[in-house]
């Protein structure tokens, strides 16, 4: 039994991918049925897994690759956090993608790699040691590339090349770091509070160098400044891909990697003792401000959202790097909160582009009247990003602020205040245009938005509201992260 669940969850996405890739493009119904069935089964399985893990059950599967090197899938509380996010959002994004790509070309290729991409995140979430993490992390890089270049335009190919150059470079750093750490410490399983024992005392410099390599490796995907250049370019991808990239798969895999390395390889106390926590806070702070600052001057809606992601994902890094359980709660909860908020924004932005052909901020005039449902969802997402209560973003910010004070760094409150102001400065003008300006003369719908496109952003917007409004209820993202943090800060 303990081996069944992790494998089953992995196979729901990994197992169907070859079948979908092999299907002829015109088998729309079959493909959609398989996709949705798999995604629904996965949500159910993950729900089962979360309940069991909350009751203290343990799940592990090990496959020895070579002596001293094993692929291990394990489900702990932190995995469940990421799994739940990816399972729920995979289902919603699949529904959306089916509607979005209706009548498009190469759909089997798209959905096949879509499944592979999600399978990779499942592997990353459940990786039980650093080696397994590395394998799935690289797998994710390759599985995402066909999605980025899906449209096949010159622009898409350019973005794809930049994406590969950045992420493979990061992968190289991660691989080097992993090999080096293996040479030093043997197998590196993920264990709360770290596995290095007394190595930090004997090899502080080596371990610091390895830490920098590892964090740089995952930091590319987490879009930490100055490694963020690929993210705004990847906006050429279709809307569901952008949504997945920003909310679940790539960016989150990077942020999740930072968590694993800090919490479960080194242990947050060790990171602080090695003097590496403060530089990491500084990187996060610079990223938060720089991302927001760059977002201000983007007229392309998706590019503006992309820079916003650069900024917001660093909240997670910030929460991890501030050595404080309160900040950790904020950072971990933001993994979920940022995911549901950003996916809402991207799905809504996709609807504006599909329904009205609007892709720029300056074209948003009157959108509240033209597409009230999508715009309402966008509004919820945007206000959440600013940190307006009672939405999800407020909860993250509240805990991060309290955590900064708890860690003796009151400057964090100023940082959050500044970030909120910048967020307001680049989101509120959009809301003003959409709700309080008249639509341009002769605006005509480009295409009817069916339920498959309209429903997912509405659901995620409701989740944004629920995650904030019911933050203190059991099984809220906040409640779950408190549970995780109680394990790390024993």
């Amino acid at each position: 039994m303990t081996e069944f669940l992790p494998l089953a969850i992995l196979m729901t996405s990994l197992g169907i991918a070859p079948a979908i890739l092999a299907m002829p493009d015109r088998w729309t119904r079959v493909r959609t049925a398989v996709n949705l069935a798999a995604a629904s089964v996965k949500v159910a399985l993950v729900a089962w897994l979360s309940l069991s893990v909350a009751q203290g059950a343990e799940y592990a599967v090990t496959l020895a690759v070579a002596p001293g090197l094993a692929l291990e899938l394990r489900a702990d509380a932190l995995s469940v956090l990421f799994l739940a996010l990816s399972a729920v959002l995979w289902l919603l994004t699949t529904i959306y993608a089916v509607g979005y790509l209706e009548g498009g070309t190469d759909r089997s290729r798209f959905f096949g790699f879509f499944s592979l991409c999600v399978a990779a995140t499942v592997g990353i979430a459940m990786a039980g040691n650093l080696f397994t993490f590395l394998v799935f992390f690289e797998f994710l890089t390759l599985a995402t590339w066909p999605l980025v270049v899906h449209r096949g335009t010159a622009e898409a190919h350019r973005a794809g090349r930049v994406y590969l150059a950045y992420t493979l470079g990061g992968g190289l750093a991660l691989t080097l770091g992993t090999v080096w750490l293996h040479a030093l410490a043997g197998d590196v399983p993920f264990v709360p509070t770290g596995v290095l024992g007394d190595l930090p005392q004997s090899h502080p410099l080596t371990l610091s160098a390895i830490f920098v390599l590892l964090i740089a490796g995952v930091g590319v995907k987490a879009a930490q400044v100055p490694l963020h250049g690929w993210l705004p370019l990847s906006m050429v991808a279709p809307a569901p891909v952008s949504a997945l990239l920003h909310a679940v798969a790539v960016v989150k895999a990077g942020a999740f990697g930072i968590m694993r390395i800090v919490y479960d390889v080194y242990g947050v106390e060790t990171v602080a003792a090695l003097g590496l926590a403060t530089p990491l806070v500084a990187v996060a702070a610079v990223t938060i401000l720089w991302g927001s600052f760059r977002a201000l001057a983007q007229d392309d809606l998706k590019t503006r959202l992309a820079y916003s992601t650069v900024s917001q994902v660093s909240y997670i890094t910030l929460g991890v790097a501030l050595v404080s359980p309160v900040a950790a709660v904020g950072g971990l909860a933001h993994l979920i909160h940022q995911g549901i908020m950003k996916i809402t924004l991207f799905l809504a932005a996709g609807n504006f582009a599909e329904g009205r052909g609007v892709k720029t901020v300056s074209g948003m005039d009157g959108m509240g009247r033209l597409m009230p449902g999508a715009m309402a969802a966008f509004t919820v997402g945007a206000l959440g990003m600013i940190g307006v209560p009672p939405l999800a973003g407020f909860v993250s910010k509240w805990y991060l602020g309290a955590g900064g004070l708890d860690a003796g760094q009151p400057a964090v409150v100023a940082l959050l205040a500044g970030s909120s102001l910048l967020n307001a400065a680049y989101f509120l003008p959009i809301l003003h245009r959409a709700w309080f300006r008249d639509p341009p003369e002769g605006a005509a719908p480009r295409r009817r938005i069916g339920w498959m496109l309209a429903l997912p952003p509405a659901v995620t917007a409701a989740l944004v509201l629920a995650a904030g409004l019911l933050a203190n209820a059991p099984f809220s993202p906040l409640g779950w992260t408190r549970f995780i943090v109680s394990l790390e800060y024993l």
Partner: protein
Amino acid sequence: MITLPLWLVPAAPLALLVLSAVPPLRPALAALLPLAALPALLAALADPVPMPVRLDWLLLGSGFTLTDRARAFLGFTALLWALAGWQAVRLLARDPARGRFLACFLLAMTGNLGLLVAEDVAAFYTFFAMMSLAAWGLVLHGQGPAQRFAGRVYIALAVVGEVALFAGLALGVHATGATEIAGMAAPAVPAQATALMAAGLLVKLGAVPLHVWLPLAHAAAPAPASAVLSGATLKAGLFGLMTVLPLGQASWPEAAATLAAMALAGLVLAPALGLAQGDPKAVLAYSSIGQMSLMALGLAAGLAAPGAWPLLGAALVLLAAHHAFAKAALFLGVPAVWATARPGLRAAVIATLALPALALAGLPGTSGWVAKDALKTALGGVDGWQAWIGAALFVASLGTALLMLRALALLARAEAKTSVPADSAAPAAVAVGLVAAGLSLLPVAPHAAKAAAPADLLPLAVAAALAAGALAIARLGRVRLAPLPPGEFLAILRSEEPPPRPLALPAPPRRSRALAPRRGRERSARPEHGALAILGIAAMLALAMATLAPDPPPVPAPVVRTEG
């Protein structure tokens, strides 16, 4: 005996908002709009006081409670929202964007009523933010250039205020460990935290120099929205300050001096700038700045002389309730004036509105006189202030009286608008009736009645003389002064939108260069005016706080981490 659950106070307008998402229900719900404030009114009048409610699952663990002070605020706030809602439904009956206005209205109402009953910091902040942001929609409703400019200034200050409040609350909660909003007045709260919270709340109160949004917003918003903005939301700022400032505890002379300086500046500037306005609603807004400055003066006195606070607090509640009703009656009366074209009828309407105007000016026998007398008595107990407080209060009364004359004169000349339905006058009539009945004074302890002294009439008499003199000079000398542009010093920033740029040609194809992420794809633009406004005002406030802060004590050493 039915006990009213307190959560119903904010939940009632919110439920109406949620239901209005169903289109067939909308007409019926619009008619119910004034009733959304009914639970709040019942809670304020209920005897015994409704029990506190604890909702652990809500936000970060929230609760609702009704303190005596909140009860008084809740009474007049609920009544005002009901009256304004009534007029809004009538006034906007044929407005195509009515749904949007009513949604913002209900959201702002939820926030305003909710913050009065919120027990914990998160709930208070939530409702406060809800009110501030939703009011942006009320200001922007008309969609003209004036609204756009007012909206920009409003939202910039509101966002900066929200962020300051957030930072202050976070600091305060961390220092005390308390999660109740009432705990933010504890001595353990660091001075910076109090300063930040106060900055956020003073924006809402409209204290000089954070007042710039106020005349613009009040002039730009539809009349019922101006009525609640002025009557109720400004009072939310006062309520917040009365809650978080360490009043009645130790004396804090530096803070008192800063606040008193802001208040005195407001008392002088409000009439000076307000008299030069050409829009009656802007004049009324400046009068609100003056009145709110008077209340800020009361707060300053409470910080300077803790012993005087009990009396001051009661006087401030009286003054707030009185001003809420009187000012709301005037704002609600503006559409009543627009609806009347016949000179005789117009004169009758103006004469009716003269009652709240006279009450604001403190005519003996009115609620205004009672409230101002209470404040005067309480302020008299502050040591060291006796030398100038009398003069300050005289200036305040004189300024108000002049502003009221100016507002009524402008109203009398206002052009009739055929689009305004005549029945939008009814709520104004009820509001005037409430002022006349002195109902505004019901929820608070009665002030010891005192006979009016002839000196109390002096400001009114001087104002009348000055006005007559000015009128005579203008008539004889044929002087005509152009009214000031709205927005004071910000007016220079007011720019019309640039004409849309001609369609850009597509960028020439680039040779693909794999590692040139900045090139090509990104279309950079200048940030929006609103964005610049937010950042500019934030920078100004940060600079002001950095220079003005009377050496803040160091942040307390980090608390030892709680294990587990």
